[in-house]
C-alpha cells in the first residue's frame, strides 16, 4: 500500500499525538537526572521536585515582599494587556478591513500605506513607543496593536475581496444599499475569518507582549521570566513558559470553538 494511503486508526492517532510530548518529558527527565548526578547544585535542568517547589512558591504562597500570589498577579497583568491589545486590533481590523475590501476608493487610499506599515518591524518601533507613550501600559498595548492589526486588516480585506462577485451582484439585485450589503452579506461572512485571523495572530501578540514586558514593567509573565533569569532560576522559568503555552493553546481552542459554535455554516464541508 502506498504511504499516502495509510491512515492511522483512532487509537494510533492518539498515541502518535501523545508520543512527541512523552519523548520531550523523558528527554528532560533523563537530562536533568544526568546533570544532577554530576552536580547536585545544578540549576540548568532542575528536578521535578524543585520545579514543584517553585510552582508552589510562585502560585500558591504569598510573596514575602508584596503579599501577592505572583503567578496569578503576573497572569492578570499580562492577560489584561494582551486582551486590550487584541480587542483594539480586532476592532480596527474589522472596520478598516471591511471598508478597504468593499470600497475601491478607500482601497486605493489605504491599501498601499497599510502594506508598508505591515512591513515595519514592530519591535524596532518599541523604543519610539516608550519615548512617546511613556513606560506604562499604553506603550505595551500599542505595540501589540501595531504588531498585529496591519496583518489582520490585510487578511480581512483579502477575505472580503474573495467573496464571489456573483454574491455581491445578487445582493444588489435584491435592492441592497452598500451599507445593507456590508451589514447582511459581507459582515457575517467575514466574521469567522476574523476569528481565525485573530487566532493566528495569538503567537505574534504574545511575542510582542513578552518583549515589551521584558524591557519595562513591574509585573507580568514576561517581566517575571526576564527578572528571574538574573538568578538562573530555571525552576521558575520552565513553569512560566509552560503556563504561557497553556494559556495560548486554551485561547486558540476557545476561539476555534467560538467560530464553529456561532457560525456553524462556516465549517469546512467534508466530502
Amino acid at each position: 500500500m502506498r504511504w499516502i494511503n495509510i491512515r492511522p486508526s483512532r487509537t494510533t492517532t492518539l498515541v502518535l499525538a501523545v508520543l512527541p510530548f512523552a519523548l520531550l518529558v523523558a528527554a528532560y527527565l533523563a537530562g536533568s537526572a544526568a546533570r544532577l548526578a554530576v552536580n547536585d547544585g545544578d540549576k540548568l535542568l532542575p528536578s521535578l521536585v524543585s520545579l514543584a517547589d517553585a510552582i508552589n512558591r510562585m502560585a500558591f504562597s504569598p510573596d514575602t515582599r508584596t503579599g501577592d500570589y505572583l503567578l496569578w498577579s503576573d497572569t492578570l497583568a499580562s492577560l489584561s494587556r494582551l486582551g486590550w491589545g487584541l480587542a483594539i486590533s480586532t476592532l480596527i481590523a474589522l472596520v478598516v478591513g471591511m471598508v478597504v475590501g468593499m470600497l475601491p476608493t478607500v482601497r486605493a487610499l489605504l491599501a498601499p500605506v497599510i502594506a508598508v506599515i505591515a512591513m515595519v518591524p514592530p519591535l524596532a518601533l518599541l523604543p519610539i513607543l516608550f519615548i512617546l507613550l511613556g513606560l506604562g501600559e499604553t506603550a505595551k498595548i500599542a505595540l501589540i496593536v501595531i504588531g498585529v492589526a496591519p496583518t489582520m486588516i490585510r487578511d480581512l480585506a483579502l477575505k472580503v475581496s474573495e467573496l464571489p462577485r456573483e454574491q455581491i451582484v445578487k445582493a444588489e439585485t435584491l435592492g441592497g444599499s452598500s451599507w445593507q450589503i456590508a451589514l447582511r452579506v459581507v459582515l457575517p461572512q467575514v466574521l469567522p475569518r476574523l476569528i481565525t485571523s485573530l487566532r493566528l495572530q495569538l503567537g505574534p501578540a504574545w511575542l510582542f507582549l513578552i518583549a515589551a514586558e521584558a524591557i519595562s514593567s513591574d509585573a507580568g509573565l514576561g517581566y517575571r521570566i526576564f527578572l528571574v533569569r538574573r538568578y538562573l532560576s530555571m525552576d521558575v522559568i520552565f513553569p512560566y513558559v509552560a503556563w504561557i503555552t497553556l494559556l495560548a493553546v486554551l485561547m486558540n481552542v476557545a476561539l476555534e470553538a467560538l467560530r464553529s459554535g456561532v457560525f456553524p455554516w462556516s465549517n469546512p464541508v467534508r466530502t
Partner: protein
Amino acid sequence: MSDIKIDNVWKEYGDQIVLEKISLEIASRSFVALVGPSGCGKTTFLRLLLGEEAPTQGTITIDGTPLVPEPGADRGVVFQRYSVFPHLTVLGNVLLGKEFQNSPVAARLLGDRRGAAIEEARSLIAEVGLAGAEDKFPAMLSGGMQQRLALAQALIMSPKVLLLDEPFGALDPGIRADIHVLMKKLWHETQLTVVMVTHDLREAFTLATRVVAFERPRDRPEERERYGASLTRDIEIWPPRVAGAPTVFSPDRDDPVTSMGLGRDDPASIVEGVAP
C-alpha cells in the same frame, strides 16, 4: 411592462472587441435564450443587461428609460454558482430582499412586518418546491435545490426582468428537466421577461419563445482581437409560446410529458411527511 431595447451596442476591453453592432428588441413577457459557443460574449451581454458593466457604445433601455449603470432591484439574476448566501438559511435567503427593501438601516425586520414577510417567503419557497427545507443552510442542499432557492430569492422582489446565466448548466439531466418545468411554471404565472444564457441548445428550444445566437463571424486567430461577436441568428419558436397560455405541444416539445406539479428533484431531502 418591460420592453428591453438594445441599440447598436459595442463592448470593448481595451483593444479587444468583444461584442459589436448588437441590436435587439425584447418584447415584454418573452423568454429569450442566448446561445453560442464559449467565449463569444453571451455572458458579457448579460452583464450589460444586468448593469454590472456599461456598453462602450450604444444604449440599452427598459421601457424607454436608459439602464442605470449598476445592478438594481428591477432586474433579478440567477447565476450558475454563488447565487445564494451560504450564511443564511433557505428562509433567510428568501427574506433578504424584503429586509433590504423595508429596513434601510438595520436591514432586519421585526414583529408583524417580519411575520408578513415570512408568510410571503414561505409561500414562494413552497412554490419552488422547497417546503420543509426552510431552516437548512445552502451547503445542505443539492445543486438543483440551491438553484430553486436562487429563483425564489430573486422572485420575492417581483423583478420586471429575470436574467439567467447558465443557471441549470451544472445540474444532472433529470434534475434539469424538473427545474425546467418549474421555470416554465414561474414564467407563466409571474410577470417576468426572461433572458437566459445557455450552452444547451435543447434547453434553449425547450424553454424559450425566441432563441438568439451569438457568433464571431471572423474567428481566425489574427482577427479575434479586432472583431467581436455579433447576432447571427434570431429564431422565433413555432408554434409561438405565449406566457400564461398553454401551447399546442404541452409542456415540452422534445421532452417526455411531465406534470406541472412538484418535480422529482431530491424528494428525499424534503422533510419527511411533506414529500409530494
